[in-house]
């Protein structure tokens, strides 16, 4: 008989050999492009998409029901999130020695998503360095400069939002390194402000060399600020805010002077985050059944001469059926008029703030008369209130803070940040005995652990 015992190992060997030879198992990523495509072989189209992507990244976690506007609104006693399914918005946000550093939804995302967009900008800046100068396949040097100026301005905005939420806890600056490298140190608030100013100044230089147009589309929220020259006005407006925040009032006035500040222009003139209902676009979830306005907004409002409350209250909040209490908190006010639809825009910075920032800088510099003029301009034109004749160096700061409260209501934590800057968090209303006003979010637990 044939000795199958000898043949079989041979057959097995053949099988294995055939198997090893005939394999080419490749299944690409069908869902997304690889990062290498952008970083190593950038094209005009991919670089342009990465630039527009910065506006998508900058919009992340701003207008969510638990995003930047909502959480800073809670801390600044502008809003409530009366969520019966997750009561931490009504408990943790008002309790404890410090805010819980462990939860992404209650502060962690305010850090992580800003740094994600900072990385987006760094990826784009890397790609720009590799991009050809040919305007068809790449970008002209001027277009690259315009894009760099854009990227660094958005990066500065992200850093500003990080330090706004962390304040004295500081933030990380040197993040343009491989993700697995040891993390850079956490630096002081002052150092972060200095870095932001540096980015804005570098960006301004790039924008000035940036020619007449951006080589990529901006969102409708940038209407009027969508060329390198006009975008520079937005850059200067941000610089004005940062300089006020860090107490460089003279620098602030210079920057504001180069911005789009104008008492002749609409108060709403400015730059916004756009939201949309198209596929792949993002809706604003601040329009959420659990989000309510703080009752003190109505209670504290001045009256117009006709007896009606401050016109800004009428423009921004509306009265509804009182909400059943969640952890003892309740309200009958909602922000429906401020954010009427899921596709409403959220302000990044606008003329009304710039006028108030100019007033604030003048107060800081002791030029009270100029400040009074701006404040009364806002009282009349935004609040429908009479001019105040009794303003002086002693009471003007409180008046400024009141005007900022109502002018910038629920637009991005202005109340909380402003009161904190002047050491006045203790003056914010307390809803329940034992509640505290937190001054800053903690450095996220993952950021701390990565340093252990």
């Amino acid at each position, binding site marked *: *008989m*044939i000795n*199958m*015992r000898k043949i079989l190992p041979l057959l*097995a060997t053949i*099988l*294995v050999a055939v*198997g090893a030879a*005939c*394999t080419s*198992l*490749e*299944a690409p990523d069908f*869902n*997304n*492009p*690889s990062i290498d495509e*952008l970083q190593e072989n950038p094209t005009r189209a*991919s670089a342009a*998409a*990465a630039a*527009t992507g*910065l*506006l*998508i*990244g900058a919009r992340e976690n701003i207008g*969510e029901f*638990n995003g930047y506007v909502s959480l800073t609104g809670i801390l600044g006693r502008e809003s409530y999130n009366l*969520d*019966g*399914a997750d009561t*931490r918005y009504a408990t943790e946000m008002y309790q404890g020695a410090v805010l*819980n550093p*462990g939860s992404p*939804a209650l502060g*962690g995302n305010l850090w992580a998503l800003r740094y*994600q967009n900072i990385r*987006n900008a760094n*990826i784009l800046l890397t790609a720009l360095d590799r991009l050809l100068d040919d305007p068809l396949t790449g970008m002209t040097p001027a277009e690259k400069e315009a894009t760099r100026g854009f990227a660094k301005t958005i990066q500065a905005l992200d850093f500003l939002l990080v330090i706004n939420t962390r304040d004295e806890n500081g933030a*990380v600056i040197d*993040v343009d*390194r491989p*993700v697995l490298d040891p993390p*850079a140190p956490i630096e002081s608030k002052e150092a972060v402000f200095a870095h932001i100013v540096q980015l804005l100044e570098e960006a301004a230089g790039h924008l000035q060399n940036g020619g007449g147009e951006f080589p990529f589309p901006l*969102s*409708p929220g940038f209407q009027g600020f969508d060329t390198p020259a006009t975008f520079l006005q937005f850059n200067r407006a941000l610089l004005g805010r940062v300089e006020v925040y860090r107490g460089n009032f003279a620098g602030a006035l210079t920057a504001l002077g180069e911005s789009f500040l104008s008492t002749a222009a609409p108060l709403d003139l400015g730059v916004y985050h*756009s939201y*949309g209902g*198209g*596929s*792949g*676009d993002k809706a604003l979830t601040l329009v959420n*059944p659990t989000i309510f306005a703080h009752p003190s907004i109505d209670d504290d409002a001045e009256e117009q001469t006709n007896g009606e409350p401050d016109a800004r209250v009428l423009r921004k909040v509306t009265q509804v*059926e*009182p909400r059943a*209490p969640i952890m003892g908190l309740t309200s009958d006010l909602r922000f429906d008029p401020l954010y009427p*639809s899921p596709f409403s825009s959220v302000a990044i910075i606008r003329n009304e703030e710039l006028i108030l920032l100019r007033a604030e800088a003048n107060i800081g510099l002791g030029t009270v008369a100029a400040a009074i003029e701006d404040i009364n301009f806002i009282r009349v034109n935004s609040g429908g209130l009479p001019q105040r004749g009794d303003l002086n160096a002693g009471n003007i700061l409180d008046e400024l803070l009141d005007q900022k409260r109502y002018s910038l209501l629920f637009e991005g934590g202005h109340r909380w940040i402003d009161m904190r800057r002047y050491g006045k968090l203790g003056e914010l209303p307390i809803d329940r005995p034992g509640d505290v006003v937190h001054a800053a979010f903690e450095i996220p637990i*993952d*950021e701390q652990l990565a340093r*252990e």
Partner: protein
Amino acid sequence: MDQVVRRPHLASLLLLVVFLLAPGLARAQERTLTGTVLDGATGDRVPFAEVGIPGTATGTITDQDGSFRLDGVPAGQSFTLRVQSTGYRTREITVPPTEDNVEITLVYDFLQVDEIVVTGRATAVGRRNSAVSIATVSAQEIERVPAASVEKQLQGKVAGADIQKNSGAPGGGISVDLRGVSSIIGASEPLYVVDGVIVSNVAIPNNQVVISAANVGSNTSVFQTDEVNRIADLNPNDIERIEILKGSAASSIYGSKASNGVVLITTKKGHFGPAQINLTQRFGVFDLSNKLDYRTFEGASEATVDSVFGPAGVEAFRQGQFFDHEEELAGRHDLSSETLVSMSGGDENTSYYASGLVKNDEGVVLNTGYEKQSLRVNLQQTLADRWEIGVNTNLIHTEAQRGLFNNDNFLITPYFALPFIPRFFDLNQRADGTFPLFPGASPSNPLQTFDLMQNEEEVWRFLGSADLTVDVWRGDRSTLQLVSNGGLDWFRQRNDLFFPPSLFFEDDDGLPGTSLLTDGDNLNLNGSVNLVHEYAPDAYTVRSSAGMQYEERDLEIGRVVARNLNAGQPNVGSGVNIQVAERRERVEDFGFYVQEEALLMDERLNLTAGIRGEQSSSNGDTEEIFWYPKANASLRFPEPADGVDELKARVAYGESGNQPLFGQKFISLDATKNIAGNPGLTFIPVIGDPSIQPERTREIEGGVDAMLFDGRARLDLTVYQQTITDLLLERTLAPSSGGDTQFFNGGELRVRGFEAVFAVTPVQTEDFIWLSRTTFYMDRGEITELPVPAFAFGGFGTSLGAFGIAEGESPTRLIGNVRGEIVEVGDINPDFKMGFVNEIIWKGVNVYSLWDWQQGGDIINLTTFISDLAQTTGDFVPDGQARLARFGTPDAGTYIEDGSFVKLRELTVAYELPAAWVETWWPWARSVRLSVSGRDLLTFSDYSGLDPEVSNFGNQQIGRNVDTSPYPPNRSFWFSVDLGF
């Protein structure tokens, strides 16, 4: 029969072939034996039993009436006749020289002594010689009480298989966890193989998170929709037997898809003989088996009502008035039914099995239910003596309506909404057709929600396979066989969810009306070629096998979200605001193996060794071959002691893998977003590892199997240890890097366990048989090495309890914040589980019961947490208040409860009508059987939630046991008639 054999149906067909050749070989000094084979318990005739003389080619198969005629038996001398039939104990009798007609009774193989169990892709061995612990479940055990999904019918029956339903929803959604945790973030479900084809068990969420916002809080998992793992589509009634390879020692031959175990399903095949038709008709009802019974406020003061519900509550409050909202929503008893028809038969060369199923389960909750229709045709054809072709086809259609349950951030799923609605408020539809809304925290009326919404899941599925077996060579002592198999599994799952603008909560986002369409399309393709060579001189048997396999899996999921519906139409095209998404996954695997098996020392020693090599597109390096070796041995000791018939010692080692999930190797940009129509690229912060590879499980298993008291009892004891290395892990990056997490391989997990099966026939008389089987198992896991800092996983954060993954700790332990410290607050892994099967057969009456006992296993009870927050838990005053006070200290252990339970899983009383009655009254029928049965009839548990079997996050080994507004538990009662023609 104790020699190595091929897969069962092949064995019987070969015998058939031999039988057909036999007449030509008949010689003069031979005679003919006739006889009948009977079932010892029922007296029924046993068709298709194999009858033959061991060691010779003389053999036949009994016909439809259990009769046989065996030519060519030795004349003038006695000889041994062996009779065997699937599901019965093999019996050998001595036929005296003068006897020409015999009656042989067979006993139901309750102890599973004479089963054949798998050893490789194309090979099998008698259980008596198996060196690994393989659990088998026969059709008889599956079919007793109907269930929507086959895993449900395995519950409590298999030592080492922790099977839990994720909720009480009609249809599937059942997790199967074989031998403890084997992965932290990788796949955790076993591999399912039906007739040699790897079938998909993917679970595609229905996208209801768009409505519930379940994924926008602290856990962003989209698997919070009570999704169905698709093995639920199978028709359990088509299954002939299930073999469960619990660990790597047994499953190594399935390579890098096998570390969670393998479930091998064989469907029914036709037999030689005239057509046999079976008809089963069942009717049943489902019944809500537990409620939460919220606070009634009987005798409460207005101030109390005001403090809970505000002024609207005071307005609605009427002393002594209360409504049972749970009963109103989940108190349905609509008639459910199941109709089964099967037909089988065949001639010498061709056999067939065809079956049809129409099933309709009516859920206890308003507008929920599950329907299944299945059509199967299995054909076997022998060609030219050496060729056998088998073709199996199955077309399945299912439709499930599962309501709106599980986690939710809008307080609209029933157990999130009802706590905020006072029980004294009437939710029922008014005469004018409208529903009342209580103006509280919940923006919904669940009765309105379930009346108007739609959540439909429809699946069309086709399973097809063909196998070809060729006897390449047949010698006196050796044979060479080619076994090849190819098949496909295709399904399309379509989810239509519709929330009309008239729903109270629909306008909350400013976009009234929502319609969701999910389209999942999956194709699995398999092909394999195997060669099996057997060399069997008298003293020993050696079998060598080798083969290769190619497998491909292609999954595509498309989703449309339409909001602000034009005229409130359900068509997604009518949405003013539309979001579209698509996800595609594709995996290609190539593998090959060689295996050597030997039966030595008079078939007492069994030795096996083999190795598998595998490449996969899911690995970082698609060229790299990963090797999975195995080796095992068993030795039988006949009659080692009094009362012990036979003892077998066995030891087995095997390695297997767990592939990276699709995408874990990519570093990508997100190209799905735009802003106002302008496309933009952003970095995806979940970063892949371009060198990712499979997890590797090494398992060593040892055990003793004893046959006791003259075949009256069997005891199997097994211990095992699994060491899992190269775990798929996610490294948390410093968020300032812009990255979130990165996948990588590392760490080590160890699982040790013990399993015992004791089967016994305590009583066996002429007309009374009592069969009893007890299974016991326990396992303990420990993370022995973790190269990342300890992290919390799953759940909803450490304030409520999450899974604490840390070196030196159990992977299933729960951690939480207790007064500022993160400490252990529980463990979801049960201390042990036991199953008790008892069957009594008395004169055609058959009583069967299955009890399932789980000791330990903690649950995060957020359903009670929500009602405590609402101050409406039944025991809120004072227990709920005390819980809230404790929770505020803070103490994350407050809502973690012990999930121990004892359940009466199955109970059946069946009566087989005596043959005489059947003949008199229904002469057209062969047999008539009536039965009443029930499933999950009784639950004994201290757990305060609805049901200790619960998982908000679907099928997960780590992450389950989170109770968040599940579909309520229910029991079912059935009346069945089985007719045989």
